[in-house]
């Protein structure tokens, strides 16, 4: 520990057996210290922090700290706070309950039947935690005391920024140019092939239609009878509908839903629902 309690007015070193001291001054200062501690409770970062502060009054290496004594100090602190009608946060009371439990277990002879860690283990872990917290505090303070950038070490005050130049090179060859020109001058020749959606009966449409109708057509029925209404007269539309319907029947035959039959080359194709 780099500093002892003597720097802190309310943590005047308490002589061993402080409570029993005859010296009035010490007794008064000890009481003041306790009161200050309580009043300053807001300055603590929780019960562990308070325990660490209290542990310093033992003036021993944290490894050798008496957890029993620490528990008593803490409980006395809580008692004192109650007397002064200072409201303590629930955390502090939870810790008090835990320490009271630990204290009672430390005082009682160990119960061989008891489950879980022994009171000594719990005490040892608490001591370890306090030592570790203390070590981390010291580490933090050493870290902050280093030659920090912007405080004792400095970076270049006027960094020279790297200029980022972006240059775009466009590529175009004479060929591109001439093709572009040819495209423009022959625009009328290159009429894009426009797909005539109105005159096309899709296979999806045909599938849907045949699936619906095949249930009613129990006997062999000509494929032509499945063509949708209004598609039989116009040759282009009839061709599209026939092709789609034929493809659809092939698909359904593949799925095992219907059978196809053709008596001879170019004779009408007939279909029927596949008997179960």
């Amino acid at each position, binding site marked *: 520990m*780099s*500093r*002892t*309690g003597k*720097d*802190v007015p*309310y*943590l005047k070193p308490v002589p061993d057996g402080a409570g029993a001291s005859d010296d009035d001054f010490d007794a008064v200062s000890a009481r003041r210290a306790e009161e200050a501690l309580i009043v*300053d409770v807001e*300055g*603590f*970062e929780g019960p562990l*922090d308070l325990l660490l*502060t209290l542990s*310093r009054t033992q003036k021993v290496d944290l490894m050798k700290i008496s957890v029993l004594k620490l528990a008593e100090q803490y409980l006395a602190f809580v008692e004192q706070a109650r007397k002064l009608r200072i409201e303590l946060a629930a955390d502090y009371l939870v810790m008090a309950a835990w320490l009271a439990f630990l204290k009672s277990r430390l005082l009682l002879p160990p119960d061989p039947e008891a489950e879980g860690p022994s009171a000594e283990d719990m005490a040892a872990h608490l001591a370890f935690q306090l030592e570790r917290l203390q070590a981390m*505090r010291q580490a*933090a*303070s050493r870290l*902050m*005391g280093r030659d*920090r950038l912007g*405080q*004792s070490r*400095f*970076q*270049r*005050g*006027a960094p*020279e*920024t*790297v*200029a*980022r*130049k*972006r*240059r*775009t*090179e*466009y*590529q*175009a*060859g*004479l*060929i*591109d*140019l*001439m*093709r*572009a*020109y*040819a*495209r*423009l*001058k*022959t*625009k009328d*020749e*290159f009429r894009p092939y426009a797909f005539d959606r109105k005159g096309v009966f899709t296979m999806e449409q045909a599938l849907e239609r045949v699936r619906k109708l095949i249930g009613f057509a129990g006997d062999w029925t000509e494929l032509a009878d499945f063509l949708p209404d209004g598609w039989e007269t116009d040759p282009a539309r009839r061709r599209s509908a026939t092709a789609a319907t034929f493809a659809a029947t092939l698909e359904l035959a593949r799925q095992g839903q219907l059978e196809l039959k053709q008596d001879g080359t170019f004779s009408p194709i007939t279909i029927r629902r596949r008997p179960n």
Partner: protein
Amino acid sequence: MSAVSELSEIEGNPEPTGDDIDPAEFPPPPIEVQERMVEALLFASSQPMSVRELAARMPHGCDPAEAVRQLVARYQGRGVMVEKTGDAWAFRTAPDMSFLMQTETVEQRRLSRAATETLAIIAYHQPVTRAEIEEIRGVAVSRGTLDQLIEMEWVRMGRRRMTPGRPATFVVTETFLDHFGLESARDLPGLSELRAAGLLDSRVPSDGLQVPLAMREDDDDIDDGSPADDLFEDE
């Protein structure tokens, strides 16, 4: 120790306490140390520092002018140099190292179809007005497309056409001819040549592609040289 008292220990960067001592009683540090001081000060400062400013920051009795002189000499031929700006001094990158301070990224991009077509029309029909380009392409020519071609220095403004409104015309540049390996725009191949070279679809009709047009009579002979800025205002 309280949480509060420890804070100052952690955070409060303890100031060197020697401020009370009269600095004049102490001899200045050796000039080598002064040079180090100037080096650190110039490095960390965001602004060039004058000798007077340096003196104000250095211990009593220092000779920053001499320290600067030595520092300048020390950085002679280094990657950075101590340079005087007005009456102040600063570190700067050595001129021959400045190329390291910029990164250039070259991006290869194909010219857009709109730009290629516009360029082709200008090349084959120059001088040509914007309205004529639009008529040939069948779509409006965006300002960006022409700007891009002008920025690339492939196209420039030509003479104004002596027609109502005196529209500006566009012509191709020497840079364009260089880039495409042409001696003049008249060397642009015509249709039959393209077809002979197997570059065109045979479906292209023979009268579809013209050889570059001769200059039109009605062009304004007075090249006023100034790019027709007003041209773009209607955009």
